[in-house]
């Protein structure tokens, strides 16, 4: 070993100050995970516009946004939950239960608005159950929501069996399908944009939002600094349940179909999109614009590939590969950064040793 050790290379470059190691503003903005995803989204849209026939039609935009609207909606609270290092796997089951409630109550002759509100409330109650088990009983959210995933889906399937409710008031189902007049943008985008802005303000511009990052980074430290970790998480799960309930009503109206197995597997797509959008599964890191770009990226890619004649199985493979790549690349970058930092540290040590001798 000793024979191969190279002679130390004399350092001829001038010593750099600390400021040289900190990144300039443009790098801090452009080299973030969020910017990378937005950039990728822009590239995918540009390539699709150029290459895929019919991708530039207004109809594509309409169908794309309609179909990903439930994912977009649920991704908002999911982002907050994952930032606090928890997870909610039960969202798709809540969508299913809410859809079934909407169907059953409409069939029973309730006015649709009342049925819809009840269905959303059922979603909220499901969120309360999740929140209670996670925060009051103190169970890991992964285990709790695997349980409620099965339980809530089971109730949904149990209530309707294999039957389906397909009759809904025309006014409401038109409302779910209609575009904003004069545009190819579906009306569901209005409540989504309102919610997205509300969530963005909540997460990025309020003490509550800051506290979510604190909890995700170190929940004991957050607790000692006066944040009520339990109550915060509880409300996040209630939010997630409520919005999933709303997504369930929308889902039902959009496809004119209330079934127990509606939206099966949606939780995987939501989580995949949120992680792709730069939220760390370890908590404490992520931003809403990245998440929205992540959902859109998966949606646009899927839509473009489908138009190009690729089957949905291959699209699923691509979704999976994107998810794995996004988390592996994040940890690869972190590893490279650690290496760089330790290299800088070693260099400093060597310089110090050289100067002192």
């Amino acid at each position: 070993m000793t024979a191969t050790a190279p002679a130390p290379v004399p350092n001829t470059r001038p010593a750099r100050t600390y400021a040289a190691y900190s990144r300039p503003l443009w790098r801090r903005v452009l080299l973030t995970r969020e910017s990378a995803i937005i950039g990728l989204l822009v590239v995918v849209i540009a390539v699709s516009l150029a290459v895929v026939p019919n991708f530039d039609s207004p109809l594509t935009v309409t169908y794309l946004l309609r179909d990903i609207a439930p994912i977009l909606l649920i991704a908002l609270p999911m982002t907050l939950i994952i930032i606090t290092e928890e997870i909610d796997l039960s969202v798709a089951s809540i969508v299913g239960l809410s859809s079934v409630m909407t169907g059953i109550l409409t069939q029973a002759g309730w006015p649709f608005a009342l049925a819809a509100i009840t269905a959303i409330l059922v979603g909220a109650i499901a969120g309360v159950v999740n929140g209670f088990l996670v925060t009051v009983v103190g169970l890991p959210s992964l285990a709790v929501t695997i349980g409620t995933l099965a339980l809530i889906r089971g109730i949904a399937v149990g209530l309707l069996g294999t039957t389906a409710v397909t009759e809904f008031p025309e006014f409401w189902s038109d409302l779910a399908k209609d575009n904003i007049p004069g545009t190819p943008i579906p009306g569901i985008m209005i409540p989504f944009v309102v919610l997205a802005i509300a969530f963005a303000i909540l997460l990025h511009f309020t003490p509550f939002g800051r506290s979510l990052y604190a909890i995700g980074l170190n929940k004991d430290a957050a607790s000692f600094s006066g944040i009520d970790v339990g109550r915060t998480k509880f409300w996040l799960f209630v939010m997630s349940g409520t919005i999933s309930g709303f997504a369930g009503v929308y889902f039902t109206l959009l496809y004119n179909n209330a079934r127990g197995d509606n939206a099966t597997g949606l939780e995987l797509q939501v989580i995949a999109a949120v992680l792709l959008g730069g939220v760390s599964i370890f908590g404490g890191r992520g931003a809403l614009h990245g998440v929205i770009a992540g959902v859109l990226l998966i949606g646009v890619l899927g839509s473009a590939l489908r138009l190009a004649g690729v089957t949905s199985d291959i699209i699923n493979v691509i979704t999976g590969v994107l998810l794995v790549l996004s988390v592996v690349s994040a940890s690869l970058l972190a590893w490279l950064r650690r290496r760089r930092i330790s290299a800088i540290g070693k260099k400093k040590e060597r310089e110090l040793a050289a100067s002192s001798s």
Partner: protein
Amino acid sequence: MTATTAPPAKPAQPGSSAATRIVSHVFKARETGILIALLAVIVVATTVNPNFLFSSDGFRDLLLTPSLLLLVAVGQAIVIITRNVDLSVGSVLGLTAYLTGRLFIDIPGIPVIAVFLAGIAFGAILGLINGALVAFARVPALVITLGTLYIYRGINVAWTGSDRINASDLPAAFRGLGTGQILFIPILTIIAVIVLVIAAWVLRNLRSGREFYAIGSDPDAAHLYGLRVTRRILTAFVLSGALAGLSGVLYAARYGTVSSAAGTGLELQAIGAAVIGGVAISGGVGTVWGAAIGAYLLLTINRALPILGIQDFWQRAVVGALIIGAIVLDRVLAIRQHRKLIEAREDVR
């Protein structure tokens, strides 16, 4: 309180005889409670309809139906004990089940044993991919196996297309494995129990088995102590994949028809079986025995529900309630244990 807390038979108490030790161990074990629940379901269902147990079909189904899930649940339990999770097992089963059919179709006269080895090896490779991504990239298994769940299933659907394996494609000798029995006991059950006993023995007695628990209890401590954490986690995933692969081959033998949807949703049942059987999702706690009994409980309940006059649509709700009940019970037991330890410490002072 203070007088009674110290003596009660700790398993290692020198005064207690071997018999009391075994009895107290059996009554304290988490597996006992779940076994009693399983027996209760069987007794109630048999009381309502004696055919549930006392007919040749009933008895056979009782043993046979959960055997495939048992194999997958054993692998899942090992992975969960290391504080990971494998969501891709259903997709791995689907792929190997289809591979099994394809081997018989494409290579006429291939020996059955070669098909078994191919299925297990293929499953192990898929598990190795999961394990490598988890262990080397230091990424939570939840995310990785969520990704590979998509990837493996997508590959399966693309490979299968609208094609499917039919019973007529498989040789009779192979099909016989799926339906045959030795002395009233289905061959599949015998295979599953052999695997279970080996896994239980390894986890209980071998150093490598104990290290799974050490890693799951505290990965950082295990690493600092010098355990080969990366290698053990790789092993756990390879085992989980290989067992899912084995049950994929057996799936083909049992059902004869394999479509691209084979094994969909199995991951939830496997995790459910392990958790209900007392394997803590936070790692380090549980046995494969528990997971095996959990698998039997899940699928026996499914068969019992229609007999009890409940539509089997409700099965998933029962499974969910059981999972939640099991983790709440674990939590209650953990709190009580914690309190006891505190009291014991106060007494010493």
